[in-house]
């Protein structure tokens, strides 16, 4: 698995920076970094849901996006991935807008798993066929990793909530993404599934895949985050390394949020 990631990163690194770069730089280029968001706005129904948002993500690892309900977390994720066009501003991944070419190097896991009405294995094969030929060995190793190999032949819709989300994650990884975008993937899952998903996400991050993980679960953010982006009312209220954010939040909204006070 590591080899595959490296091979791919090598290809992209060649294109991006030919000069002898550090490993980190290779990984960054592979992960489509830096991500630069400038003056991003999204308006709907006369309201600014994302309001002239600026953000710059350069570090690899896991970035968690946090914030109270309605802060615009899920919306931001979709704008970053190019699923919806912004009202104004721009999103640039290593200088490129999130068009099809960029999307192909990314994968998204939705809060409510979207599974094809097929078997577990067929769900995997579908995305693998998009990228090329399905690879049974790789498919099975991914399913093994998320603990679904024994359920390969099961209809995906008969899986439990946790199993469905694990399948979504395995399917996302099957596309060999450089960036993995996750929209509250563990909301309402049992602890075992949460742990599995977190472990796989950390593993993926370790292999150089950039993770952007939306969550409102403080404990989870503490477990997995390398850095935190805290959103409030469609803007970035705070953007800090995880340790700093949890120890010494600088914005008053983040303070209130971490203290468990209601943030509107």
């Amino acid at each position, binding site marked *: 698995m590591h080899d595959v990631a490296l091979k791919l990163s090598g290809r992209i690194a060649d294109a991006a920076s030919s000069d002898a770069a550090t490993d980190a730089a290779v990984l960054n280029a592979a992960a489509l970094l830096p991500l630069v968001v400038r003056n991003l706005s999204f308006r709907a129904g006369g309201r600014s849901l994302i309001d002239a948002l600026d953000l710059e993500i350069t570090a690899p690892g896991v970035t968690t996006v946090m914030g109270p309900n309605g802060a615009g977390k899920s919306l931001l994720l979709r704008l970053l991935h190019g699923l919806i066009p912004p009202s104004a501003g721009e999103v640039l991944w290593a200088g490129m807008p999130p068009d099809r070419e960029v*999307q192909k190097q990314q*994968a*998204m896991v939705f809060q409510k798993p979207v599974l*094809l*009405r097929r078997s577990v294995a067929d769900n995997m094969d579908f995305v693998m066929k*998009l990228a090329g030929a399905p690879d049974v060995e790789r498919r099975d190793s991914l399913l093994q990793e998320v603990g679904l190999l024994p359920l390969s032949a099961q*209809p995906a819709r008969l899986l439990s909530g946790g199993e469905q989300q694990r399948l979504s994650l395995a399917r996302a990884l099957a*596309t060999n993404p450089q960036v993995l975008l996750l929209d509250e993937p563990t909301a309402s899952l049992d602890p075992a599934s949460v742990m599995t998903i977190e472990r796989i996400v950390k593993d993926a991050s370790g292999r150089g895949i950039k993770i952007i993980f939306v969550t409102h679960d403080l404990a989870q953010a503490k477990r997995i985050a390398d850095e935190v982006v805290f959103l409030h009312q469609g803007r970035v209220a705070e953007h800090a390394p995880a340790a700093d954010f949890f120890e010494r939040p600088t914005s008053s909204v983040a303070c209130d949020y971490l203290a468990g006070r209601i943030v509107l």
Partner: protein
Amino acid sequence: MQDFAEAFRLAFSLVLSGDADLFEIIWLSLQVSLTALLISCVIGFGLGTVVALSRFPGRGGVIVLFNTLMGLPPVVVGLLVYLALSRAGPLGVLGLLYTPAAMIIAQSILITPIIAALSRQIVEDLFCEYDELFRSLTVPLHTAMAAVLWDARYSLITVALAGFGRAIAEVGAVMIVGGNIDHLTRVMTTAIALETSKGDLSLALALGIVLLAISMTVNALGLSLRSTAGRQAYA
């Protein structure tokens, strides 16, 4: 009341006696309507899927048109096909009037809008579910269409059954373009119309009962297929 009892008795004795003429008519009815259904499914599922998955100016109009054509009177379809296939008509050289092929064409025209309109709804609903995933995966349009059609296949059985029901039950179109010719284009419905016009109401009703039984068999087959799939959570 006596008529009903007589009709049921007659229906059973017709079927049990293995009446050759009856089975010829039943076989032709099935042949014509199933062929029309297959053609309509190929065209209708295709049209329905294209309209479901694409956005173009006038799309709303197309949907209204499909829904309107669902109510096409069979006689009107029969008349249009007659005018087209008549020797004096534009397609007269084909020599298809008064043949099973003409009946298949008429029934295909009759039920394609039904298949297209109903499948569009089903495909569109499923596609809404898949939409973000497909865009995230940058699935090409033709792959998306194939995937949605395939995944909706069990729901589409209901659509096909609706089309089949309309085709096997209509009389207006096949009467005009088929001509109700004995041993050539006589199907269940035109035979019923004929016996009614001969005043042999019991026989007409008996044929109606047989037709209903055939329809029921086909529907039961289709629905059992669907419910099996339903239990497997594919539908």
